């Protein structure tokens, strides 16, 4: 039996041993001796210990002792040296050999080779360690959660971020780790994932150990067993704070640009910007000040979170380096950083720092806001209630903010300017009864100004079509209008026309249309034009025609008044000679002896002067005799000489130096001599009058006759007077227009009528030097004019009855 048992023991696939209750070995099987190379004698007692790896021995013995003490079976692991010196891992299993009731009789054990298993385990452990270090090294928060959502394991980043140990994390509630604004959503989503097993994907702010919140993107995946039950949740949380901030800023920027485009007021936009910066860089206060239009003072922009008393003490300060950081930044167009106002020495002249400190502010960073053209519009300031210097984050915020602010301010300013100019334009259009339009020919798209709607009496905003316009065109003018528009469609050149409108109440309006055609990049034709309501002008022209006839009469009277003095002088001169000579003659005859020869001479002079006076009267009678327009051949030189003779004293009295420049070969003209002389007289007196205030240069007057182009004769009267306003050239000839208190203006309008009735024209032009030249040009006498043609040779002035030009003597 013993032998057979011994064979069995030796055949067991393990090293078998027995030991006494005190632990000494008293049996080892054959395999043990073969493996260790120790003989039974060597190994008995405590000799076996030499085969155990020295590093493992103490623990093995310790364990063995405790097993012995407990009297319970146990297991130990240790490396055992093989006969060839190689150590392999073995599992020591031991149990009691005992009587049923009694104490331990003996211990037996089996030692099995677990080297291969240990190797696998070690490899596994090494791999796990590597994974662990990888997970710990991941730039993300990684957590393993139980199916119920309880924390099981986290990586190093989690511990560092929250500043807690795993145990603390396990013990604490999950909610407070999130930003209060996100908490509810986070928990709801997490509960949903836990209940449904759907992956979790959410972004929320996590509270860092130092209290700051950062945005994390959290993704959770369930790990399922083969039956599909969730055994674990993997949670990967990535820091997306920078991205979120960038997104928020971008969204903010987009929102602000929308606000700018949407016409929000500048102060609204600037306030919203301040709020954005304040919420992005927590703990700061923002303000915007603007540079006033004169560029010398600060104006309020926005400061939603700063005390009003602080702002009021900043605005109105001069833009210079001394009055404060914002004024300085605006003045220098560069950033001004004051990280600690308690030690700041600038702006002392205006006591800025004490003022800011009194409001609890200790740091100020002010940055200029510049237009695209580089002009400083204002300054943006960030304040802190503790000393602080800007970080790069702050700087990028500031850069972005000032950029948007500059857009908002510039836009607001250009909007205001645009509104002003639009208002001016609308006002100007209204005042001048002028509307403007654009017309895209290909599509017949028509845009109208407000005033044009008013002129056409259409409701504002009604879409304007060619057909709609057609309903207002006066029936008689429709062919004209069609013709003009048809030609405009084809030609693409500018057009101008006058036509009438017939309004629903049958009233008629006169319109003057001017349009300029141009082609856009696509070659499409577009007209930009102006439409003026000239109804009143037309009506007043008609009324004026009547008035002008009446005033021509007044003109004659006025001219007479001006001439009276001249005539008196003209007649008095020869009269004076006559009387003096007659007196002399008498005295010579009364002398003793009488001076007969002298008397004869003076008598001759008396006769001569009498004739001279008679000539004057004859000329006056010719000029002022009652007569209708008479058509005759007129030598303009001769006619002019007569006028000069008649007015020479008037001219002399005004100290006018008159220089006639008459062309020798001047052909005769056909016309009414007296009417033409009236015109010449009028021009001479006007010229004389125009120089009455001239004292710094000769009052030179040149009257010139010459041949003009196209068989015409021209007469010019050139003065050295004060001239007239070039913008008023056309008005010079208006019946009521005069630049002089003397009131010769009416004469000009009548003069023009006379010249036009002679198929000529009368105009005024500035001299190169001082003064003005008035000229008229009329046709020469046509060949072979006979009395039969006379009636048709001169057109009666259109609006003036010719009889008014003749003076009733």
């Amino acid at each position, binding site marked *: 039996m013993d032998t057979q048992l011994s064979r069995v023991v030796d055949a067991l696939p393990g090293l078998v041993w027995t030991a006494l209750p005190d632990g000494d070995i008293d049996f080892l099987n054959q395999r043990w001796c073969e493996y260790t190379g120790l003989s039974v004698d060597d190994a008995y007692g405590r000799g076996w210990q030499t085969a155990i790896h020295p590093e493992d021995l103490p623990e093995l013995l310790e364990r063995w002792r405790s097993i012995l003490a407990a009297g319970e079976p146990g297991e130990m692991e240790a490396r055992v040296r093989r006969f060839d010196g190689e150590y392999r891992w073995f599992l020591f299993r031991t149990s009691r050999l005992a009587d049923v009731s009694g104490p331990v009789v003996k211990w037996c054990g089996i030692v099995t080779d677990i080297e291969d298993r240990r190797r696998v385990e070690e490899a596994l452990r090494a791999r796990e360690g590597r994974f662990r270090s990888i997970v710990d090294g991941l730039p993300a928060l990684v957590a393993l959660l139980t199916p119920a959502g309880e924390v099981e394991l986290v990586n190093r980043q989690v511990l560092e971020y929250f500043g807690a140990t795993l145990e603390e994390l396990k013990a604490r509630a999950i909610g407070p780790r999130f930003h209060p604004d996100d908490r509810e959503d986070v928990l709801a989503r997490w509960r949903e994932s836990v209940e449904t097993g759907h992956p979790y994907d959410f972004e929320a702010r996590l509270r860092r150990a130092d209290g700051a919140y950062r945005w994390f993107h959290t993704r959770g995946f369930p790990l399922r067993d083969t039956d599909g039950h969730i055994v674990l949740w993997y949670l990967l949380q990535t820091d997306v704070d920078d991205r979120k901030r960038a997104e928020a800023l971008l969204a903010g920027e987009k929102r602000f640009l929308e606000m700018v485009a949407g016409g929000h007021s500048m102060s609204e936009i600037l306030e919203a910007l301040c709020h954005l910066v304040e919420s992005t860089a927590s703990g700061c206060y923002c303000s915007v000040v603007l540079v006033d239009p004169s560029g010398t003072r600060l104006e309020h922009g926005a400061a939603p979170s700063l005390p009003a008393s602080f702002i009021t003490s900043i605005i109105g300060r001069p833009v210079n380096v001394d009055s404060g950081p914002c004024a300085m930044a605006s003045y220098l167009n560069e950033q001004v950083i004051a990280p600690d106002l308690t030690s700041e020495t600038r702006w002392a002249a205006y006591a800025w720092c004490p003022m800011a400190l009194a409001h609890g502010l200790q740091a100020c960073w002010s940055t200029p806001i510049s237009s695209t053209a580089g002009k400083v519009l204002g300054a943006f300031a960030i304040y802190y209630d503790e000393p602080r210097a800007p970080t790069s984050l702050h700087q990028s915020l500031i850069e972005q903010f000032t950029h948007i602010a500059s857009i908002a301010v510039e836009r607001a300013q250009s909007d205001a300017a645009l509104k002003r100019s639009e208002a001016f334009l609308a006002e100007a259009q209204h005042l001048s009864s002028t509307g403007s339009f654009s017309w895209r020919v290909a599509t017949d798209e028509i845009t109208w100004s407000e005033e044009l709607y008013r002129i056409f009496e259409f409701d504002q905003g009604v879409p304007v079509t060619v057909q709609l316009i057609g309903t207002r065109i006066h029936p008689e003018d429709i062919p004209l209008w069609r013709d003009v528009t048809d030609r405009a469609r084809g030609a693409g050149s500018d057009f101008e026309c006058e036509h009438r409108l017939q309004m629903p109440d049958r009233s008629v309006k006169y319109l003057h249309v001017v349009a300029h055609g141009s082609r856009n990049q696509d070659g499409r034709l577009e007209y930009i034009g102006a439409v003026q309501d000239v109804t009143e002008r037309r009506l007043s022209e008609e009324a004026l025609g009547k008035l002008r006839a009446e005033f021509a009469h007044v003109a004659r009277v006025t001219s007479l008044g001006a001439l009276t*003095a001249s005539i*008196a*002088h003209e007649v*008095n*001169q*020869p*009269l*004076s*000679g*006559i*009387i*003096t*000579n007659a*007196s*002399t003659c008498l*005295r*010579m005859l009364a*002398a003793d002896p009488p001076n007969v020869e*002298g008397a004869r001479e*003076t008598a001759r*002079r008396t006769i001569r*002067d009498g004739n*001279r006076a008679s000539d004057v009267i004859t000329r006056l009678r010719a000029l002022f005799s009652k007569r209708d327009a008479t058509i005759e051949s007129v030598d303009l030189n001769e006619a002019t000489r007569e006028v000069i003779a008649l007015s020479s*004293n008037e001219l*002399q*009295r005004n*100290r006018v*130096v008159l220089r006639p420049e008459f062309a020798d070969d001047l052909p005769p003209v056909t016309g009414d001599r007296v009417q033409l002389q009236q015109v010449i007289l009028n021009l001479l007196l006007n010229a004389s009058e125009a120089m009455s205030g001239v004292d710094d240069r000769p009052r030179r007057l040149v009257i010139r006759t010459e041949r003009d182009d196209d068989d015409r004769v021209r007469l010019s009267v050139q003065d050295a007077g004060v001239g007239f306003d070039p913008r008023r050239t056309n008005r010079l000839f208006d019946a009521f227009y005069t630049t002089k208190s003397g009131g010769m203006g009416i004469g000009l309008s009548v003069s023009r009528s006379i010249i036009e009735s002679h198929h000529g024209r009368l105009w005024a032009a500035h001299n190169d030097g001082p003064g003005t030249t008035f000229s008229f040009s009329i046709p020469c006498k046509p060949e072979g004019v006979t009395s039969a043609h006379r009636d048709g040779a001169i057109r009666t002035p259109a609006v003036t009855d010719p009889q008014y030009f003749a003076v009733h003597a």
Partner: protein
Amino acid sequence: MTVEPALVSVVDDDESVRESLPDLLRQFGFAVQAFSSAEEFLASDYVRQTRCLILDIAMPGMTGPELQQELMLRRQEIPIVFITAYGDETTRPRMLEQGAVECLFKPFSDTALIAALNIALRAD
């Protein structure tokens, strides 16, 4: 004893006056010089000798009143009788106020002229 006749100068741009008036004045027994402009008179040698000046008001160039001013500046206090073919009721008082002896409107009578000359020469 021969008394040198007093010199009366006539300044008038009108030729008929320069022609007729000196003859009349000579009939009165004056020596006469006639000038066609104020400038011509001022440039002549007769300014100092002139006892009375018969002066047209409106002349091209220097006017009668301007000549009067000029003479005052030169401290040549010659009595002046203005004559004019052009004037209204305000002309004479204005001239008298400015120091003229008389102001006659053309045409004037020989008696009006001699009366004015008498005043002028008495004042002298």
